């Protein structure tokens, strides 16, 4: 009995051709018109068709088909779709199947037009989507590069201004001049802060870093942040006759530690409060309210303004460039920054109109878990950090190679470093830096990241490849790209430290070990209070691993540098110069910590906070108390250093042997 398959295939629209040998095929089914048109056949073609002459594709497929027929396997051998063009120019998709039945070698052809069109549409959509995705990725990449260039270019003039202010502060300037300098310094800091904000909002690098936990400090306390911002902004509210209240449950057992990072939490509070201030009428109140449950800490900012626009959903209020109905905001970045930051920390943020009047903006953050805290405590701060350890036995002065292509930066930084007693060789690009490092061994090499001829990274690589005895002890990157991922990138590239530009020279000084000695990272960045153990000199001796010479040098440096700092702190407190007060107190706090001066450390810290908050209520009194503590410390160190000097005489030769490193000349 004949197989029912041919009939079945015919009904499905297949054309059946039997392979007769010698490359010729004969129809087993009626000739369809579309095939006649494609292969230019007459309607009643009864001779064998040389298929290989009609279709190069089938010529290729017949190799597979022949192998299939020869194998006498059951089943079938199917081609992919190919396209042939008819004499009218119409493109026809075709598919071929080789099979066997009733002892015949059969080629079944059909045109799967609808399925083919559907498949084309599907693949077209998929590939268009892939192309669009690629295009967007390229676009984002280009914008990020552009953004970094802009940020870099904006930062450069600030570098000049910042260093110029540093230099001018050391000149004899009239009181009025000092006030103007403080004003200039403040404006510079403000602009720097704005640049950082822009970078924070837009940089996908930052987004990537926020995707994980910020590990730059131990779990921050939301109550402390709220108090800080409340204290700093109360006067602004008062100036507009608006009362700013802080409403916190009176329960000491409550834990306010959250996931996040304190400076950004403070920025979130500031943004929400600025927003509330913008819409609050005079004689009204704005209230910061905190509450806590088992998993989250929630903060609310309530105002008594007009409430939210009815046609603006909360999600839109927190979107990019949203400016509210009256356009009262600035660039529309503030609330977007809040949302981005809170959500990256696993929290949420929203707003609503209050039942009677006003609006409520709120956010909540997950409480810091014990695991996270442990992880946070283990992680070192990333700013100006190296994990390889700092140059532990450092003495002044140092031989420093400075490479920066900007004349002003190079000139001023050189001047400052030389005033600090260092010997500096300034060069203008990475190539000159490499050549200098090849000729002479430096204690520290400062490399600008962006330089002509040879950039900082390339210069670093070249210097690192020098013979071991020529490699400097520390190679520090100076960079205008000052986001955390950028700093991490430069550290990963092999820099010992990374300093973002514009930088304060006191920071560089601390980094170079000027008055912090053994552990500049910790001293400069850590808020860890000192422990009062033993005498101040034994504390510092302990910190520098018993290196008496270095300890004495640190004492000498401290005795030399502290009086002007104390004077500066007193002046800043008197002139209500917050940034200067915070900066000087911060620097002094680091210095006294290494001597285990607990009281001096505490007063410095309080002054630093007062400076940051521009709260000068207690500043003068704190400065006075700090001065008294410092006086005690100085007296102790002077006396102790003298005793150590005589005691150390007998060990001088040992000390010298320990310092068999390169000679440092001033």
């Amino acid at each position, binding site marked *: 009995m004949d197989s029912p398959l041919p009939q079945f295939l015919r009904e499905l629209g297949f054309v059946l051709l039997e392979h007769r040998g010698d490359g010729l095929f004969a129809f087993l089914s009626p000739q369809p018109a579309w095939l006649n048109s494609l292969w230019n056949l007459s309607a009643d073609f009864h001779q064998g068709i040389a298929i290989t002459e009609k279709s*190069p594709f089938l010529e*290729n497929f017949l190799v597979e088909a022949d192998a299939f027929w020869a194998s006498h396997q059951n089943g079938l051998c199917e081609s992919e779709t190919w*396209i042939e063009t008819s004499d009218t120019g119409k493109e026809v*998709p075709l598919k071929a199947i080789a099979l066997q039945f009733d002892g015949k070698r059969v080629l079944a052809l059909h045109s799967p037009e609808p399925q083919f069109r559907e*498949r*084309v549409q599907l693949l077209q959509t998929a*590939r268009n989507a892939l*192309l669009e995705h*690629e295009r967007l990725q390229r676009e984002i990449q280009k914008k990020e590069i552009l953004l970094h260039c802009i940020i870099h270019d904006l930062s450069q003039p600030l570098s000049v201004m910042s260093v110029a202010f540093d230099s001018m502060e050391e000149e004899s300037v009239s009181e009025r001049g000092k006030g103007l300098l403080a004003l200039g310094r403040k404006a510079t800091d403000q602009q720097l802060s704005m640049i950082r904000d822009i970078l924070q909002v837009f940089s996908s690098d930052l987004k990537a870093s926020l995707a994980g936990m910020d590990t730059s400090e131990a779990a921050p306390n939301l109550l402390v942040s709220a108090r800080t911002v409340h204290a700093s902004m109360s006067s602004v509210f008062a100036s507009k006759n608006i009362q700013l209240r802080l409403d916190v449950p009176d329960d000491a057992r409550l834990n306010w530690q959250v996931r996040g990072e304190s400076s950004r939490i403070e920025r979130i509070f500031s943004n929400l409060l600025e927003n509330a201030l913008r819409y609050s009428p005079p004689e009204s109140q704005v209230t910061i309210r905190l509450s806590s449950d088992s998993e989250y800490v929630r903060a609310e900012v309530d105002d008594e303004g007009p409430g939210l626009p009815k046609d603006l959903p909360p999600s839109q209020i927190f979107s990019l460039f949203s400016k509210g109905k009256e356009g009262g905001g600035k660039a529309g970045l503030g609330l977007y920054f809040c949302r981005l930051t809170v959500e990256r920390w696993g929290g949420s943020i929203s707003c609503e109109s209050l039942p009677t009047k006003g609006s409520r903006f709120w956010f909540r953050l997950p409480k810091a878990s014990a695991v996270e805290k442990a992880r946070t405590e283990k992680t070192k701060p990333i700013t100006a950090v190296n994990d390889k350890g700092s140059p532990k036995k450092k003495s002044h002065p140092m031989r420093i190679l400075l490479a920066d292509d900007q004349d002003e930066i190079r000139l001023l930084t050189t001047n400052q470093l030389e005033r600090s007693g260092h010997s500096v060789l300034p060069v203008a690009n990475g190539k000159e830096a490499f050549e200098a490092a090849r000729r002479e061994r430096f204690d520290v090499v400062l490399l600008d990241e962006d330089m002509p001829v040879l950039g900082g990274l390339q210069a670093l690589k070249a210097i690192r490849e020098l013979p071991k005895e020529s490699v400097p002890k520390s190679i520090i990157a100076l960079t205008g790209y000052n986001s955390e991922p950028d700093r991490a990138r430069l550290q990963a590239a092999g820099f010992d430290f990374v300093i973002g530009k514009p930088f304060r020279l006191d920071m560089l000084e601390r980094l170079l070990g000027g008055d912090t000695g053994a552990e500049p990272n910790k001293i400069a960045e850590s808020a860890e209070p000192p422990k009062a153990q033993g005498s101040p000199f034994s504390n510092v001796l302990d910190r520098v691993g018993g290196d008496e010479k270095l300890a004495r040098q640190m004492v000498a440096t401290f005795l030399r540098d502290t009086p002007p700092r104390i004077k500066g702190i007193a002046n800043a407190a008197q002139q209500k110069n917050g940034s200067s007060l915070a900066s000087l107190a911060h620097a002094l706090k680091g210095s006294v910590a290494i001597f285990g001066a607990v009281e001096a450390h505490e007063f410095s810290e309080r002054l630093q906070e007062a400076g940051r908050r521009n709260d000068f209520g207690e500043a003068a009194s704190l400065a006075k108390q700090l001065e008294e503590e410092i006086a005690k410390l100085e007296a102790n160190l002077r006396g102790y250093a003298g005793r150590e000097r005589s005691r150390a005489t007998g060990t001088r030769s040992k000390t010298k042997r320990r310092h068999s490193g390169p000679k440092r000349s001033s």
Partner: protein
Amino acid sequence: MIQKKICMLGAFAVGKTSLVRRFVESIFSDTYQTTVGVKIDKKVMQLEGTDVTLILWDLYGDDDFQRIRWSYFKGAAGYLLVADGTRKATLEKALDLEERARKEVGAVPFVFVLNKSDLAEEWEIDSEAEAKLRSRQWTVLRASAKNGDGVEEAFMELTRKMMR
């Protein structure tokens, strides 16, 4: 009459079909139309006084949706390896395909075409990468199916290689 089979090989949307259309029909469309399956064209060209019929196998772009069947290369005298100069990833893909072609069909003459040379501002394949290709003793040509630059030359150069 001499006949030579040529395959077009490359990632999707690099312009294989456009190069064939420009070469065979002297036309170009700005709209991207993905190729599904195989399309075969013919073009007769003269090389040093000899007519050569090129059988052009325009193969779909190799990607996760459609994998190249190396059986299509049976009888091929050469192939054009095509990358999109404005998409660096297609260069990587082309290098991968060349390696696979070498394994599957042996040493077949080919010409490396960096298509879309008209889009100079979006060009992503730098001269260093191009020099690297040339350092492999490959023939590397820039072409534009859109304005026709380098298209004829690419097919001519491949034909020359195939006729050697």
